[in-house]
């Protein structure tokens, strides 16, 4: 049995305006109440004129409403003035409009408007329980503004009808629906009592509906569309509750009526129809599919197709719908049910082995740590910019907390979480900034010291100490202690590659060991700025720095450092010249041979001769080998210089040459 939503019953007629009537009270005369559907045509004659006038009023009110929604006080604005003018130009007064959630009407004739504002205004007015508006005289701008403010205010359960009068507005009258309902005069309790915005279902109607499924389905559709349209847009609970009511009502209908209703729903363009169809499970639709007529069945399949395209979550349901559509209910349904039961039993039999395998997935704390790290990784990869900082801060705090309590294994894992995640440079820099901020403070020094002497191999040292390198203390620690520097060297290199900025800053340090350590770490960076800064260190006053700068430069630019290395062969300090020599020895460039041979011929300094020969001895070109051989084979060396060259050549080529 359909459960109707009764919004109220109305008398057969409503009353006309009396000049002596007070706002909010009932007029004296009775006029015919609107009948028929909302899209019924105009009746012609005087009614037609009234409808035309009504349209003008709706147009004016829509313009005023639209202006009001944009401007708190639209008086004086051109559009608002136009609305006032339209209202002033009405052919007669009073002009009455009836109000429904879907819009305005005049004498039962819907006044369709192209303006969305008209519908919104009607809906807001209806929500206040207002059944009609009457323009008794050309309203002033103040009068109209009072009306708009009243209609835009949220309903509070009070009757707004007297409020206009209280505000001194006489040109506009509001007619409350309840007042019209309470009017005993004119009330006729028979089947002809209908209203375009309410469905009154009498006992006879219900009895007839049970025998005529199409009628029941049509009534259901009417109630569904009206019922959902009556609720506020943001009344989620109300809409959901209304849907449940309709679902229950639907379930209570006969199968034939339900099938007819589904046909109506599939044919309807009203959004309420689609919303309702989505409530029905595939079993329901499939069960009724066999009862649909040949015209409706394709609509159902189209619905299923569209729903499948909308989202994957409906895929399984729609499979069921299609299956049920093909097989229908009855005996086949029982077969399907038994098949489902057997599949479930088979699944349950797999349980013992499944449980044993699941137990193996629970090795303990390690998997939990990995899971936590994975979440951080996953979040950093998918979150938007705003959330990124929040996640980064969470991560940094956890790293700092873990280090503070000495849980280096955990801090290990947390830091490793970000390694390898592809992210924009800006994000990576931001991440390290956050991490650096988390580690600020004197406690870091003690932690840095403990970490540097952790006693583990370089691999673990890298991971454990990496988070700390973003601040200066550990670089200083490495600079001051050769053993620590050796241990921490690989980690330094990794960090400098990720973010060279702190290391570049240390290139200006007063302590040459710090400078050298930073220069060493920067060997892992390939940036042009680093190259430029390292080249600047070649003039440093401290030879240790110059030595490291050479090594770093060669690491970064490779053989392109050859000219610089060759120049370094003339450095004032022997350590620097020695380093340059060693590096040059490893570079496979015949031009080096030419330069070194030329130097050998030119120099008179025995030490430089020795160095040059030592380097040349490591070269592999035939020309160098021939030259050294030639030197070594000189039997008569009159000058000290030549003798020294011969002796050194013989030394590097082996005694006895």
């Amino acid at each position: 049995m359909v459960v109707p939503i009764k919004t109220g019953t109305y008398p057969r007629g409503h009353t006309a305006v009396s000049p002596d009537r007070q706002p909010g009270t009932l007029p004296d005369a009775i006029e015919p109440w609107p009948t028929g559907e909302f899209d019924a045509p105009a009746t012609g004659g005087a009614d037609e004129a009234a409808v035309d006038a009504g349209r003008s009023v709706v147009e004016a009110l829509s313009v005023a409403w639209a202006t009001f929604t944009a401007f708190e006080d639209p008086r004086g604005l051109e559009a608002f003035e136009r609305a006032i003018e339209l209202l002033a130009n009405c052919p007669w007064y009073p002009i009455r409009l009836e109000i429904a959630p879907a819009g305005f009407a005049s004498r039962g004739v819907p006044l369709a408007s192209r303006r969305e504002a008209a519908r919104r205004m009607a809906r807001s007015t209806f929500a206040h329980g207002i059944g009609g508006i009457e323009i008794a005289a050309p309203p002033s701008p103040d009068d109209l503004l009072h009306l708009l403010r009243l209609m835009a205010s949220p309903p509070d359960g009070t009757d707004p009808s007297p409020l206009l009068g209280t505000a001194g507005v006489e040109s506009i009258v509001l007619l409350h629906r309840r007042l019209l309902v309470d009017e005993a005069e004119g009330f006729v309790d028979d089947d002809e009592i209908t209203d375009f915005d309410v469905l009154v279902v009498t006992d006879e109607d219900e009895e007839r509906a049970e025998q005529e499924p199409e009628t029941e389905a049509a009534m259901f559709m009417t109630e569904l569309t009206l019922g959902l349209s009556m609720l506020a847009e943001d009344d989620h609970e109300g809409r959901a509750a209304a849907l449940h009511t309709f679902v229950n009502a639907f379930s209570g209908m006969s199968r034939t009526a339900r099938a007819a209703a589904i046909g109506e729903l599939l044919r309807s363009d009203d959004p309420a129809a689609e919303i309702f169809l989505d409530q029905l499970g595939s079993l329901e639709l499939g069960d009724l599919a066999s009862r649909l007529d040949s015209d409706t069945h394709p609509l159902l399949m189209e619905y299923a197709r569209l729903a499948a395209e909308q989202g994957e979550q409906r895929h399984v349901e729609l499979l069921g719908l299609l299956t049920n559509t093909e097989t229908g209910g009855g005996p086949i349904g029982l077969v399907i049910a038994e098949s489902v039961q057997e599949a479930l039993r088979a699944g349950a039999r797999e349980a013992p082995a499944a449980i044993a395998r699941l137990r193996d997935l629970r090795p303990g704390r390690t998997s939990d740590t990995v899971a936590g790290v994975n979440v951080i990784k996953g979040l950093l990869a998918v979150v938007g910019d705003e959330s990124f900082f929040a996640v980064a801060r969470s991560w940094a705090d956890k790293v700092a907390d873990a280090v503070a309590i000495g849980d280096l294994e955990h801090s290990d894992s947390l830091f490793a979480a970000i390694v390898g995640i592809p992210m924009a440079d800006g994000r990576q820099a931001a991440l390290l900034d956050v991490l650096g901020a988390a580690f600020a403070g004197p406690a870091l020094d003690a932690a840095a010291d403990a970490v540097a002497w952790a006693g583990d191999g370089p691999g673990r040292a890298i991971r454990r100490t990496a988070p700390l390198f973003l601040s200066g203390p550990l670089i200083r620690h490495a600079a001051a202690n050769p053993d620590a520097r050796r241990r921490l060297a690989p980690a330094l290199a990794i960090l400098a590659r990720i973010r060279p900025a702190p290391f570049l800053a240390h290139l200006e340090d007063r302590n040459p060991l710090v400078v050298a350590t930073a220069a060493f770490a920067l060997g892992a960076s390939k940036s042009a700025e680093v190259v430029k800064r390292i080249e600047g260190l070649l003039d440093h006053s401290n030879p240790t720095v110059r030595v490291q700068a050479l090594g770093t430069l060669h690491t970064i630019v490779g053989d392109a450092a050859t000219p610089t290395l060759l120049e370094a062969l003339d450095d004032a300090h022997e350590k620097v010249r020695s380093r340059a020599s060693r590096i040059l020895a490893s570079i496979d460039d015949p031009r080096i041979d030419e330069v070194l041979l030329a130097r050998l011929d030119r120099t008179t300094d025995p030490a430089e001769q020795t160095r040059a020969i030592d380097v040349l001895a490591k070269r592999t070109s035939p020309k160098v080998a021939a030259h050294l051989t030639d030197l070594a084979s000189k039997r008569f060396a009159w000058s000290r210089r030549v003798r020294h060259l011969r002796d050194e050549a013989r030394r590097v080529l082996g005694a006895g040459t």
Partner: protein
Amino acid sequence: MNEQVVAGFLTSLRRVSGFARLYGPSHPLSLEAAEESAVAGAAMSVEKGRTHLVVSEDSLFVDGRVLARTSLEFNSLLRMMNESRVHSVAVTPQVTADDIARFAALIAGVDESFDDSPGLSITDLIETDVARSVTGELRRSYTDSLDTLRGVGSSLRSGKRLDLNATADTVETLLDKAVAQPSAALLLSTVKSHHEYTFYHSVNTCILSLALGRMVGLDDEALLLLGAGALLHDIGKLGVSPSILSHPGRLNAKQWEEIRRYPQVGAEAILEAAEPGQEVTAAVAFEHHARVDGSGYPRLVYHDHAHEHGGRGPLHLFSRLVSVADTYDALTSRRSYRMPDPPSRALQIILDSAGNGYDPDAVHAFIRMMGVYPPGSFLRLRSGLIVMVSETTGPDEPLKGLLVRGSTGAEIGVPEPVTVMREDVLDQLAETTVGLEPTAVFEAFGAAA
């Protein structure tokens, strides 16, 4: 007393109080809802001429009998009544819409006083109205879990840090009670609420996950982590716009995009509050929709090395268990966008997706735990008797249940324990068909024991 009839009255009463708060007590919508509620109240009371509803703490008693599931489903309404100091109310067939409207205004906090009428009167609470409930402690821990979630939700909305320790305490209590009454716990997990869907769903998922975790042999510490993860797995939804969550029709692409963000929203909030070792709780929130084949959401950047994990993918064990429990409760719940599936259909849907959507071992273990006929299922036997399944048994073992109706359809006063061979089962019946509520049957059996 038909619990469904009482639930119908309370549903309508809740609707009236909601409209009273939203639109005002004299708004046409409020008055319409009051009309319907008056009809429901009259129908509820017509059999005995008077229905006495008693609210004691978080339990609802009707004519001296506790309605366990209704107490949970309408927990928030009962709480409103408690806060309005309404502990006992009598409803007669003479109840009018005006009575209901005024009463709803009272409990909604719109009005402060209420005048009794022949149709509805507020009476004094009498001790004997409140009977012992076998599921009382379990339900209390259920409502405590709801309170915890409400607190978590409030923290999330106001930007405060979550209290995971409080969550763990709640889970520990729930676990203790569920272990003591495992079948009752599974029955209670069938409680649904549209009003606060996310919270009730989260508690149900927690109960199911804990039961599944015990089945796979997790120790207590692991169960606490699992339970906390299950309880908070959907907490990110509180950051999604309510209009999208309650959207009754299909979602458009933009709405789907926002919905899909909620796992990471929840994971972020949990991660921020997690102490070392608790991060796995965030993993459940993050991964429970990811699917074992990595095709879910969010896309897991660490999912590309499935072969390193023996083909299983890197989802944590807890995520695998919770995703099955989560889906089962969701499928068997009525939502604004879908009707509920019966338990066997829900299990079938999950089984169909084993291997790509869900871990197949977790699915098989879950089916074993719930049984082909889960506890609370009503079965009609070939003899015409109607039995309610009271506990799970093996797939090829006889069923254990409680006889609730004789072959003539007459209700058995005190349910009798029976053993049923599977081949004697004719079909499975819906609760509405049988007219009984599983927890009520359980209470009746337990009270007589």
